[in-house]
């Protein structure tokens, strides 16, 4: 009897292990940090950073191809770089949310003179990015461990300005609701140089899609939707008048001409077709503000 139970348990355990290995590869590192459960998995020379999440199984993680470390493994990171078709020569970039450091590294690859400041709330994520994802602090890469909103408020007092701000702080189940309000986006906007752009990795499903879209529309003069069929959605937003199609095409051509995009596996024509100008959201949805930001509740269905 005992032996049968033991055998059954072993079968279940090994079955579970096979399942886990099949989906995520081998777990090479695990840590429960102050903010989330972090794990690093590896399979077929692709190493991934995972934040435990029940809802966004495979979407919001960071991966590195160990054989081609500059390759942008995830489409959303390529879509984030679409901001470079508008802001073509960024000198100072602010990234909120480090993850595996893919975006800061890609920026450094493209612009050897760029200065990237990355704000990450979780010191454990910084350690993991440096140990497993080839991310290094250096003359071009600054890391600040802080809450993104608090850091931006302080940066406004210091009067530093950025050509591009990347919001990539939405990983896992819990959404930091204070990073989704009109007031926050206005603070970020005020941190931009006059022709600077903000690029945000956002939620593409649930009622939150509508609320988030109208909030960006309310905080910026213009916004573009970069959207993949049933996948991620990136918002590019800025001050003044929206960049015309011509500006985007010229920006894309310039990116292709001046940089070797091959190692990044970045194809600007792929991204160009994802750009949408017309709202495909409920335009009378309620704007998220510091007074009203139930983002996590809106994301439940």
């Amino acid at each position, binding site marked *: 009897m005992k032996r049968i139970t033991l055998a059954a348990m072993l079968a279940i355990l090994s079955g579970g292990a096979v399942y886990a290995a099949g989906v995520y590869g081998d777990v090479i590192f695990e840590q429960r940090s102050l903010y989330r459960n972090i794990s690093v998995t590896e399979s077929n020379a692709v190493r991934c950073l995972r934040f435990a999440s029940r809802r966004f199984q495979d979407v919001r993680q960071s991966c590195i191809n160990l054989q081609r470390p500059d390759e942008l493994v995830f489409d959303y990171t390529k879509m984030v770089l679409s901001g470079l078709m508008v802001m073509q020569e960024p000198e100072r970039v602010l990234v909120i949310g480090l993850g595996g450091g893919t975006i800061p590294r890609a920026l450094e690859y493209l612009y050897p003179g760029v200065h990237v400041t990355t704000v990450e709330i979780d010191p454990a994520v910084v350690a993991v990015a440096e140990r497993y994802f080839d991310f290094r602090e250096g003359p071009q890469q600054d890391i600040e461990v802080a*809450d993104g*909103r608090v850091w931006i*408020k302080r940066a406004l007092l210091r009067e530093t300005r950025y050509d591009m701000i990347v919001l990539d702080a939405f990983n896992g189940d819990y959404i*930091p*609701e*204070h990073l989704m309000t009109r007031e926050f986006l206005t603070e970020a906007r005020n941190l931009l140089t006059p022709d600077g752009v903000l690029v945000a990795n956002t939620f593409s499903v649930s009622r939150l899609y509508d609320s988030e879209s109208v909030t960006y529309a309310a905080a910026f003069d213009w916004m573009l939707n970069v959207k993949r069929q049933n996948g991620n959605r990136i918002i590019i937003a800025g001050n003044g008048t929206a960049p015309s199609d011509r500006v985007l095409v010229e920006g894309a051509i310039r990116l292709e001409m001046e940089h070797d995009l091959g190692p990044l596996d970045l194809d600007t024509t792929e991204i160009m077709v994802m750009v949408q100008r017309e709202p495909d959201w409920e335009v009378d949805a309620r704007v998220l503000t510091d007074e*009203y930001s139930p983002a996590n*509740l809106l994301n439940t269905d």
Partner: protein
Amino acid sequence: MQDDGSSAQSATRTAAIAAPESRFHVPLVALLVFTGGFSVMAIELLGGRIMAPYFGSSIHVWGSIITVFMAALSLGYLLGGWLSLREPSLTRMALIFLASGLTVLPLLVLGEPMMEWVFTNFEDPRYGSLLAAVLLFFVPTVALGMISPYAIRLLVRVTQHSGQVAGTLYFLSTLGSAVGTLMTAFYLVLWFEVSTIVLAVAGALITSAALAVLGDHLGRNAGARS
């Protein structure tokens, strides 16, 4: 044995000279205590939301808020018990509610400039958030803490029942806190703006004060008739 008898006797005597009360006395005090418990947790939860734009939503912000609420409640219990020694009445309890309701209101007007000031003067987000939580929430929470011990004094008639009365009031107060937490976290923030909820809580506290005064008058009238 003899001690028990004499204390019961003295308790009966105390009851005889206590202020006359209406038949609504017990349910009214129960409602007041529930409202107090509800308000504490509604404000505490909103506290996280109010402070997030300036101090983030890191664990130390919640640490600051909970520390301040616990410290303020503990002081409130002490003061409430102490206040109940002198001529306890519903009208005096109404003053506690009025004080708590009125001291919640500055959150709406002074909250922003206060946090702005703390933000510019304190770099460390831990001590910044702690100081801001003290400035914003300490005073109203002390007042809210005074309610339960004071209510116990208004309901205890005989020593033997004091534990039971205290237990029932803890039950109501903490149940109110549970309901206040759930309502705020699950529904109120989805339906209303933070300021609207704060205003409603202040309104509920001030209404409670009015109800307590009304209850006291009803009691005195009942006493005059008998």
